[in-house]
């Protein structure tokens, strides 16, 4: 058996290397009308009126729709599976356009025109009169009494508060000889910055609405569009072509509902909504800025006696994924460094900033930054080597989480740390760098993380799959788990080839495009679930297809099913390995048999009731130019245990991308807002400081391949994990180099100057 585990090139590589691959805009009907959105130019207030007359007079403008025209149907946007339990459904706080505008960039009106210029001129010609309200951008200020209120249903701006209590914190901290290590750690709003901006187009066909969208989650979008338009979900059809990256932003209903509604307002004509880069930064989704307050009570040997963790998550203006993100962040503390006595609290708070949603890592890059910083602060306070401290207190082999049933089957953390330590040459360099005293100081930092695989048991995990035996003996495979650039289709082809018994993964035709009218229902790309979840239904459906093939073969070959197998695309007799017929011969015979014709297909759904811990760590080497307040990344390695690799080349590539995102998070990226107006200040790729190829050293990706026993292919999460531990590793390397703790990211010269000055490093 053969394809799983091999470094195969991508199934979509040729088309992407030749520019043939079609993304939503490349499929645009010639007659599509342009819809352009008028965004709020205040951070908080009410729209009193919209004067549309000048816009409507522009040649080419077809229709102007405002917040006074939209149906009063609140809908949710989060890309979560539907729950039959009303208490577990996402918060429905959205309207298609808003009279109550809650952030600078909120959606007020839309101009639909025959061409882009007219649509843009129309937007500029709209005269909006506002009643301005005070606004608030900071979480702590939003929680204060008398703060501006964003949503009537959420007094105090608290979307949700949850807590976790373990043992007896108050009693535990009275233990004699404990050392208290306390810190506040702050993470910023950042954006996904997929190179393809979000966009979609919608039209009506035979009374149904079709939306072609750059989304990660077509089946969920169908439900949300149905909710927003007040139509049965089956009345909506979503088509997902190739997309130019998503990273979680497109795990949310963005403008699909608005676009679909616009089409219904112009007689079902095709309408397109294309976000500019500037809109993508502000009016899509961002990563939650989370502020952490951690109080650790530790014994002199480094063991944890008690821990208090408070997490304050900046939700921005609408609920979107809401509390799920900080809940996941909070949940990580009790697991990575187990402690018997804990008090954890998490608040998700509305502010007048862009809406925060899912982004690669889903709360874990934030939690990892805070937790790993605090661990290094503890090591410093106790004068223990930070790596040795981690090796002592990090999640042990055999650790089991009662809620998710996740189990640490191997000593993955220590294995990962060991590998990273060897690559970075930890002991020698730490000793050598400690001698640095001049303006240039070198340092080594380490940070770790764990990550779930998918969303069970919090939400439904299901995967459906359809396989067809083609007449040439190849297999066509369809599922709802989407290709968004990560290489899922290639992994599926490799897994399918092995289960069915095909010669090559090239003998599998993975239908990459999802069409909710055709594709078996699936949930889409998120939560690092693709390969793990799809693996269950691929295994089950492949075996079903194989059984059907062999049953038909039984009629032709007169051999009993149990004595036959499919190997390299041939039906063979197991006892002597004799090739009885090829799959192509079988398929042709079955299809054109005048007595018993059969198109051999298999379809099945697998409900996944498992989760799996994925582990890893980052080691970095930095060179800090103290007077210049600049950090140079000299070397970086990520080590992951994501189970068995389905395709090592693609796995490495996933890790590179996540490491790059973590470097940006650590060193450069943040969305800035004007304190006086709430206006975003750097919502473009020039001012936002996305990492370029010059900002990276070589990115080293390594693996510990412990077979994951819950997965039919021994695999588990890898999509998001690489983005989790990079930023805190950089933070800890700066601490190691300079002795200065930087408790917020990005750690840019601006912040370093402030901290180095405070610590007296810039005294002369």
């Amino acid at each position: 058996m053969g394809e799983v585990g091999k470094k195969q090139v991508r199934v979509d590589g040729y088309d992407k290397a030749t520019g043939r691959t079609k993304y939503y805009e490349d499929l645009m009907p010639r007659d599509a009308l342009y819809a352009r959105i008028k965004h709020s130019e205040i951070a908080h207030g009410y729209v009193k009126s919209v004067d549309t007359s000048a816009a409507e007079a522009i040649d080419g403008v077809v229709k102007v729709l405002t917040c006074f025209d939209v149906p009063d149907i609140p809908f949710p946007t989060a890309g979560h599976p539907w729950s039959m339990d009303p208490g577990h459904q996402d918060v429905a706080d959205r309207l298609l356009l808003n009279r109550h505008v809650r952030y600078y960039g909120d959606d007020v009106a839309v101009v639909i025109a025959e061409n882009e210029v007219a649509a843009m001129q129309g937007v500029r010609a709209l005269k909006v009169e506002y009643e301005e309200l005070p606004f608030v951008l900071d979480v702590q200020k939003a929680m204060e009494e008398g703060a501006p209120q964003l949503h009537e249903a959420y007094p105090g701006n608290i979307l949700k508060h949850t807590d976790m209590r373990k043992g007896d914190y108050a009693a535990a901290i009275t233990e004699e000889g404990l050392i208290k290590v306390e810190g506040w750690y702050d993470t910023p709003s950042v954006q996904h910055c997929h190179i393809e901006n979000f966009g979609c187009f919608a039209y009506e066909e035979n009374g149904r609405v079709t939306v072609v969208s750059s989304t990660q989650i077509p089946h969920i979008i169908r439900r949300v569009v149905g909710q927003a338009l007040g139509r049965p979900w089956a009345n909506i059809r979503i088509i997902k072509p190739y997309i130019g990256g998503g990273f979680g932003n497109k795990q949310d209903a963005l403008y699909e509902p608005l676009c679909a509604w616009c089409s219904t307002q112009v007689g079902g004509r095709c309408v397109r909504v294309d976000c500019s880069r500037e809109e993508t930064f502000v009016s899509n989704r961002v990563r939650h800025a989370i502020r952490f307050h951690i109080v650790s009570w530790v014994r002199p040997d480094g063991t944890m006696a008690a821990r208090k963790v408070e997490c304050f998550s900046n939700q921005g203006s609408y609920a979107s994924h809401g509390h799920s993100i900080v809940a996941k962040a909070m949940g990580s503390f009790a697991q990575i460094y187990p402690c018997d006595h804990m008090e954890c609290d998490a608040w998700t708070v509305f502010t007048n900033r862009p809406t925060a949603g899912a982004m690669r890592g889903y709360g874990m890059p934030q939690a990892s930054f805070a937790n790993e910083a605090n661990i290094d602060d503890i090591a410093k306070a106790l004068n223990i080597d930070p790596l040795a401290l981690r090796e002592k207190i990090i999640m042990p082999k055999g650790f089991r989480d009662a809620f998710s049933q996740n189990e640490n089957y191997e000593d993955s953390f220590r294995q990962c740390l060991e590998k990273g330590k060897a690559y970075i040459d930890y002991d020698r360099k730490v000793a050598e760098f400690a001698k640095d005293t001049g303006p240039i100081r070198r340092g080594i930092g380490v940070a770790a993380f764990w990550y779930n695989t998918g969303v069970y048991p919090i939400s439904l995990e299901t995967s459906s799959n359809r396989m067809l035996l083609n007449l040439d003996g190849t297999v066509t495979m369809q599922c709802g788990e989407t290709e968004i650039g990560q290489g899922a289709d290639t992994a599926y082809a490799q897994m399918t080839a092995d289960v069915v018994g095909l010669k090559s993964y090239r003998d599998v035709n993975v239908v990459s495009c999802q069409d909710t009218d055709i594709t078996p229902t699936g949930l889409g790309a998120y939560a690092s679930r693709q390969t793990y979840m799809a693996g269950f239904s691929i295994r089950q459906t492949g075996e079903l297809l194989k059984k059907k093939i062999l049953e038909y073969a039984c009629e032709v070959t007169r051999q009993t099913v149990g004595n036959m197998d499919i190997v390299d695309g041939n039906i063979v007799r197991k006892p002597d390995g004799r090739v009885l017929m090829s799959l192509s011969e079988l398929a042709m015979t079955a299809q054109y048999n005048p007595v018993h014709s059969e198109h051999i297909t298999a379809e099945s759904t697998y409900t996944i009731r498992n989760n799996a811990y994925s582990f890893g760590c980052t080691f970095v080497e930095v060179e800090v130019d103290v007077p210049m307040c600049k950090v140079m990344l000299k070397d970086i390695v990520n080590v992951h245990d994501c189970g068995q690799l389905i395709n090592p080349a693609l796995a490495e590539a996933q890790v590179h991308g996540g490491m790059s995102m973590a470097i940006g998070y650590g060193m450069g990226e943040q969305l800035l807002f004007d304190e006086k107006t709430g206006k975003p200040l750097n919502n473009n790729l020039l001012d936002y400081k996305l990492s370029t190829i010059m900002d990276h050293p070589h990115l080293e990706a390594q693996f510990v391949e412990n077979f994951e026993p819950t997965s039919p292919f021994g695999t588990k999460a890898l999509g998001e994990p690489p983005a989790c531990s990079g930023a805190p590793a950089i933070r800890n390397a700066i601490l190691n180099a300079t002795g200065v703790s930087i408790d917020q990211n990005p750690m840019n010269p601006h912040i370093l100057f402030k901290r180095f000055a405070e610590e007296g490093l810039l005294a002369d």
Partner: protein
Amino acid sequence: MAKNQYKLVTCTINGREVEKMVDVRASLTDMLRNDFSLTSVKKGCEVGECGACNVLIDGECFNSCLYLAVWAEGKNITTLEGLTGPNGELSDIQQAFIDETAIQCGFCTPGFIMTAVEILNRGVEYSDDELRKLLSGHLCRCTGYENIFKAVKKTMLRRLGKLDDPYLNT
């Protein structure tokens, strides 16, 4: 509608001489995508920040979003479509992008490859730092640039007959 809003442009695109009436306000990106269906030319920012729309104009790489369509008069333009042979044969750099796993979502790929072509066609052996600088006009969120760098460097060395770097051969 304003007079003189359209102008006839005659140029060579992927080896074929063409002429087209274009809106004087249109970018070369618009013309290539909308008038010639060359959809490898991608739009990531439309203000020259991301490099996804890069094409070769008389052998030199430009952000086509910042280049007016009317400026194409008399120019020789190559898009990614022009690199592929008549029977779908790939150029060495396209093959390297596939082989080195330098492609993920594929959206930045066309622009990156066109810049790589410009660099490689100079026949110069660049240092790693030089190569990084030359490629720095492109943004990619998927790959961390690691494998893109590998693909370009390997192709450079292969063309120069010097592909013996042990790191690159791993």
